[in-house]
């Protein structure tokens, strides 16, 4: 398996200027580092692109999908923008809080639970992203089943999984 450094060199070649590869490089580094960007991850990306770690951090801190702190094994994100909100997104958030025993914004070893801005699935509210895969038409009543599934307890696949 090629190293992070080598893979970033391949990304560099896709662009007229190598700095353009910083976002894909950070995405790859985050994926390889358990879903978040550590100081070492920034040093690795910086070295591969001839940038400074501070420059890489300044970019990562701008974007919502780069995580600067450790995340749980599974990341659950509930859209609470207006279209989902009108269809009961808050009840979905609260159902996850109850099932997981943690507040939105909190991380445990097992789960990170957050609310997020519009995920672009407004007509299929409420949208819940689990590890960046979108579940559609989620209602509060579906949440116990989803959490059981994530914990590895046998359940049928919920309906309405666009990305399956």
């Amino acid at each position, binding site marked *: 398996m090629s190293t992070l450094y080598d893979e970033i060199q391949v990304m560099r070649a896709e662009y007229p200027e190598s700095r353009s590869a910083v976002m894909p490089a950070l995405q790859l580094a985050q994926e390889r580092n358990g879903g978040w960007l550590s100081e070492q991850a920034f040093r690795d990306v910086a070295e591969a692109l001839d940038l400074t770690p501070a420059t890489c951090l300044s970019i990562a801190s701008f974007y919502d999908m780069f995580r600067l702190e450790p995340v749980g094994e599974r990341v659950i994100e509930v859209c609470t923008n207006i279209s989902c909100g009108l269809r009961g997104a*808050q009840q979905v958030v609260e159902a996850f809080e109850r099932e997981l025993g943690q507040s939105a914004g909190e991380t445990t070893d097992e789960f990170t639970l957050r609310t997020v801005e519009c995920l672009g699935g407004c007509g299929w509210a409420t949208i819940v992203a689990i590890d960046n895969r979108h579940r559609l038409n989620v209602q509060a009543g579906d949440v116990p089943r989803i959490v059981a599934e994530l914990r590895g307890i046998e359940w049928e696949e919920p309906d309405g999984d666009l990305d399956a």
Partner: protein
Amino acid sequence: MATSTPEIVFAGTDGGALTEIADYEAVGGFQALARVRAMAPDDVIAELKASNLRGRGGAFFPTGLKWSFVPKPDKLDKPHYLVINADESEPGTFKDREIMLRVPFRFLEGALIAAHAIESTHVFIYIRGEYEAEYEVLVASLEQMRAKDILGDVAITVHRGAGAYICGEETALLESLEGKRGQPRTKPPFPAVAGAYASPTAVNNVESITTATSVMELGGAEYATLGTESSTGTRVFSLSGNIVNGGNYELPHGYPLRDLINVQGGGIADGRALKAVIPGGSSTVILTADEANRVTLDFDSLVGAGTAIGSAAVIVIDDRCCMVQLAVRVSQFYQHESCGKCTPCRVGTKWLTTILRKIEDGHGTQADMDLLVSVAERINGKCLCPLGDSDAIAVMSYFDKFRDEFQAHVDEGGCPYHGSSSLDALLAPVAMHIHASPHGEAIDGLVSV
């Protein structure tokens, strides 16, 4: 899709997806590209101009005209770039994702047509990071096209965003593509002259590019017979909110909004009454139920009603929604997504949220109502991009059209819905960050959270 109207963008899908190249070729795929490649670039642009196709991202700028602004290579000896905006993030909008999932080849064929028209050999598709399945479909589709040598000398790079609404603004998108924080640039220079890597660049929306394929198949004049005179062709409307059948509906421009809701969408959900409609994404001016029943879905009708077709994202709101809560949530979004570059937006969106929150919580006074208007006026038109304006314009439209509800909050010292509004206690990400912060409350107006 419950529609008997002509399909342009989704033609040949029969409700499904054309993700195998043979299936796309079986419905005539890539024939337009073959013809286009034998044409002079200017003739392609002329065909687009004849179609009067206008940008589907929200600004409704004529696509052919935009391409004509890109200097000819002999006038400006730099690489030319086509950058496709697939950073769909305007709340209410989810059409481009369905286009990429169901007709990826029609979209990519359009990209090659546009590249030919502006004489570019490098196309970037900037797709929002949250669209992972869509990214995979594009990558797989490009593999199939490479295997059949359809790309020719054109390189197509799919570049993933990482969660920033502002990157849908074209110059912020270009900054982000160049590996920087996604903050808008001053204009001029415009991207057509100095866009990506300071080189001539056309930036187009996914649906515009996909439709360009159909324009070249049908011919510009034929395409222009669909829709209305000033808003030609079809549009993929994203229908959401308190509606029975939410989803995307491809319909000709000029279709009555009332029929989109009642005929296509199956009416208001849960037997409730229509209260208001946001017609073109969360940035657009709200329509009351009466206004919504009178307009048609095209540029002129919506401008005539004081709003805009925007990204064609129709958000239906029923009578359970408190308009102050709606304003709070919309303002929280823009506050969260402000890039921080221009002070009126960075500070103003925070202040709009703070004042609206105060009114919703029952602590608002008459002076706060005046302050709200004053802050909105101090954002509007004073920034590099329209993000702050969007907050001010949207919130002020709720304030103007539902003034009684705002007044009732002040008069009664609380929300007249008493906890029964559909948006009650909705936890916005911007509030979650404060809630979860170990350092306590942010300082009003100083800390952008």
